[in-house]
């Protein structure tokens, strides 16, 4: 075990792997610095974004390391209780074995498993929403500030981490951390897989290294199949953002209407309903699509709805709603995508 875990984490430059990439040591310092006898650790195992499977992969393969990471974080903030929040699948599959691992390190008395409510949707993976769920309150995000690090679960300083983040903590502690991350790579209508590779690879490199670089014209959605950015073949030199997924679509063979409809329907059905821009905006975007199909993109209301989602949504999930739709239109969509004279030829 490392002597000073905080400085090790800082040196390793660990960032949160829930998607926001917030520096881990900053969160730890904030919780540590907040006065209070009772502090909590919350482990986020909701993994609700389509296209991302890496937390499940870690739960399947590295439970011992995960529990070690949980223990280190818990010891560091002197957590009173540890809440492990899992989606239904994870809860059924891994609760008992996680508990067994926890017992081995003397942690099981502190751990409380929380099941992600059925049909609670996408929002139930957002960290302040998880706090509300654990407290038995309404399923929806909280106003920030206060941040959970100061006033989190039951008003106490709370450290919330994604499963991959805590796994990385255990690697740092065991001096095994190699600046890698888990990539979920999906090929529409084909194979999918989780790969553990250096976190500074470009999208193209990940595709090549995993033997997933397509032989056909394609585009990708990066960082989640719901709100991830859509990029064309010439935009693959950046790193993989968010929670680390790459989904490959066939440029010639895809159906733009179906793709857009799926995104818009997902958000309409998953909005928690708390704020106007998201509850009403996602509903209206879908409505306009139903009425006009792809022609909706020429409707000035659509740009307003998207701008408004980004500018004034209550939580980050709402702000991210237009990402996929707008980046697809900007980077990929062309009415002539399926004809030979396309600029991507």
């Amino acid at each position, binding site marked *: 075990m490392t002597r000073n875990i905080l400085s090790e984490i800082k040196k390793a430059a660990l960032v949160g792997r829930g998607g926001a990439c917030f520096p881990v040591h900053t969160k730890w310092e904030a919780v540590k610095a907040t006065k209070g006898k009772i502090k909590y650790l919350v482990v986020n195992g909701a993994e609700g974004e389509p296209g991302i499977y890496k937390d499940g992969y870690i739960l399947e393969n590295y439970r011992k390391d995960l529990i070690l990471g949980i223990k280190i974080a818990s010891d560091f903030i002197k957590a009173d209780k540890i809440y492990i929040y899992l989606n239904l699948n994870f809860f059924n599959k891994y609760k008992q074995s996680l508990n067994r691992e926890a017992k081995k390190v003397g942690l099981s008395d502190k751990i409380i498993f929380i099941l992600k409510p059925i049909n*609670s*949707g996408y929002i139930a993976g957002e960290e302040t929403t998880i706090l509300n769920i654990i407290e038995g309150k*309404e*399923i929806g995000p909280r*106003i920030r*500030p206060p941040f959970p690090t100061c006033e989190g679960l039951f008003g106490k300083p709370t450290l919330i981490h994604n499963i991959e983040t805590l796994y990385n903590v255990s690697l740092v502690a065991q001096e095994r951390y190699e600046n890698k991350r888990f990539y979920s790579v999906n090929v529409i209508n084909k194979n999918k897989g989780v790969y553990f590779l250096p976190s500074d690879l470009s999208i193209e490199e990940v595709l090549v290294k995993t033997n997933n670089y397509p032989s056909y014209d394609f585009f990708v959605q990066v960082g989640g199949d719901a709100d991830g950015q859509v990029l064309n073949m010439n935009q693959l030199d950046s790193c993989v953002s968010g929670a680390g997924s790459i989904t490959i679509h066939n440029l010639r063979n895809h159906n733009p209407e179906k793709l857009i409809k799926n995104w818009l329907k997902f958000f*309409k*059905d*998953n*909005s*928690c*309903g*708390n*704020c*106007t*821009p998201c*509850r*009403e*905006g*996602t*509903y*209206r975007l879908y*409505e306009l699509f139903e009425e006009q199909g792809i022609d909706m993109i020429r409707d000035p*209301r659509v740009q*307003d*709805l998207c*701008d*408004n989602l*980004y*500018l*004034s*949504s*209550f939580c980050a999930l709402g*702000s991210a709603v237009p990402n996929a739709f707008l980046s697809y239109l900007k980077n990929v969509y062309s009415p002539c995508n399926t004809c030979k004279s396309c600029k991507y030829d």
Partner: protein
Amino acid sequence: MYIALVIHVNLANMIKKEITIKIDNKKYKGFEGESILDIASRNNIFIPSLCHHPDLDIKANCRVCVVEIKGLNKLCTSCSTVACDGMEIYTNSPKVQVSRNTNLKLIFSAHIEKCIDCTSRFDCELLSLARRYSLNIATFKDRKGKRKTYKFSNSVEIDGTQCIDCKNCVDACSNIQKINYLKKDGKGFKQEIKATKDKNIDCIYCGQCTLHCPVASAQEQCDFSEVEKILENRKGKKVIAFFAPSVRVSIGEAFGLPYGYNSSGLITASLKRLGFDEIFDVNFGADITTMVEAEELLERLGDKKAVLPMITSCCPAWVKYVEFYRPDLIPNLTTSRSPQIHLGGIIKTYWANKLNLKGEDIITVSIMPCTAKKHEANRDNLKIDKMKPVDHVLTVRELAFLIKKNGIDFKNLKEEKTNSLANDGSGAAVIYGASGGVMESALRTANSVICFSSKAKICHSRLEFKEVRGMEGVKEASLNLGGKKLNVAVVSGIGNIAGVLDNLDKYQYIEVMACPGGCIGGGGQIIPSSREIVKKRMAGLYVDDKRHKIRKAHENEEVLNVLDYIKNKKMYTKLMHTSYKKSNRGD
């Protein structure tokens, strides 16, 4: 923990550092911890807001009060964002315009316009914002046409076709009143506000949801169109209106008069203009109630077997609370009827007799600050020989609407007096409108009665009982009544009831008003209403009390005459008292 919190708050108040911010390129002073909206409002900078209410926790869900802060990409809601020294804020930048206008348009389309019959038509926040920013209210299709309207007794309704999902009603019901009857059901665009499925919870009809709804989706079940029909075709009947003590100090707000302004004369004049034949003041009924209640209090105190503490019952929401949640406390409720029921009964008997009319030939319309009074007026066991003492109840809002709708220039009316056969009551009646007022009125009378009956040489009967006044949730006092100690408690707001119910043995007399501040904060009051506004209405009532020559109910000679008449006619119990029974959900 509690102590730490108090110290924290005190320190914050003590240190209150001054800050300077810029709003739309102009400098303004504020204090650390204040929201952008606080500072803007104080300096008369308009920022629209819908879900924001000063008495509720900030939810920041309507997203209409967004502003741009220099250096930030996204916008911030001014209600929830604490201003920091040096912050540069823009309330009308291009980004703000897109966002604010889009959110407003989205909200307009979540609210089906039913303007013709809407009592908020003349004060509609949505229409005013649409005009202010020149927005098309039909940018999107109405999406809630098939939503249901949920009705609670004949008092309150939630019209799902008009709800903008701000959840102020839920917060008023849960956080202020602690009833937890209203719940959000479903999520996203499908969510709606409904009654809870929990069978152990029922609505008490207090109407605090209606008072906090920014768009009249939660509102009283209106009776004004029934009343209009009656006034258009009286069928040979006399149509009488009377108004509650608290109404006089609030209705002026709807017409630009100052808070707490006493509009008795203007209300009387406007009711006449609307076509009512005679106007009475519920103050008279309140003096009657005081007499009946003070008598019962003294009886109970003098009877060792009597049930104590005696608890007031003139608040129908509180009565509903007892009948549903605590039927074991029914014996504690005073059996005295409430002022509106007393007055209605007197008009249909005593006054009818004076004018050679039959009670059946009179229609009574009561103007109340309350939604639960509609439920009360419908109670079967209050009927007098099959007659309802009160036929229709209008909220203050409904009256203000009728006055505006009929183009009556309220402010500039010539003041008129109410019917002289039953006067406008004592000072003790006026204060019925404020939390603590019913108790103070009863104590003024009980104290005098006991003093005189004990044949003391000098009676230093107390007039003012300031310890039971004010906005606090629970006020306690230990008073001297005829040489004996009387422990009393006054509960202002049903959300504060728990502590008192847990310690009933401590008291002999308790007043409960379901709405914070009493009837001046009632669910049927003028909107906007807030604790600060209620305080000003309250001050207006106590000013009026002092203006009265007669400030004790038992010194109101006409009250004594009426009571004599009723006693002689052997109608006392029938007109003055009532009974209660355990109620089921929805009763």
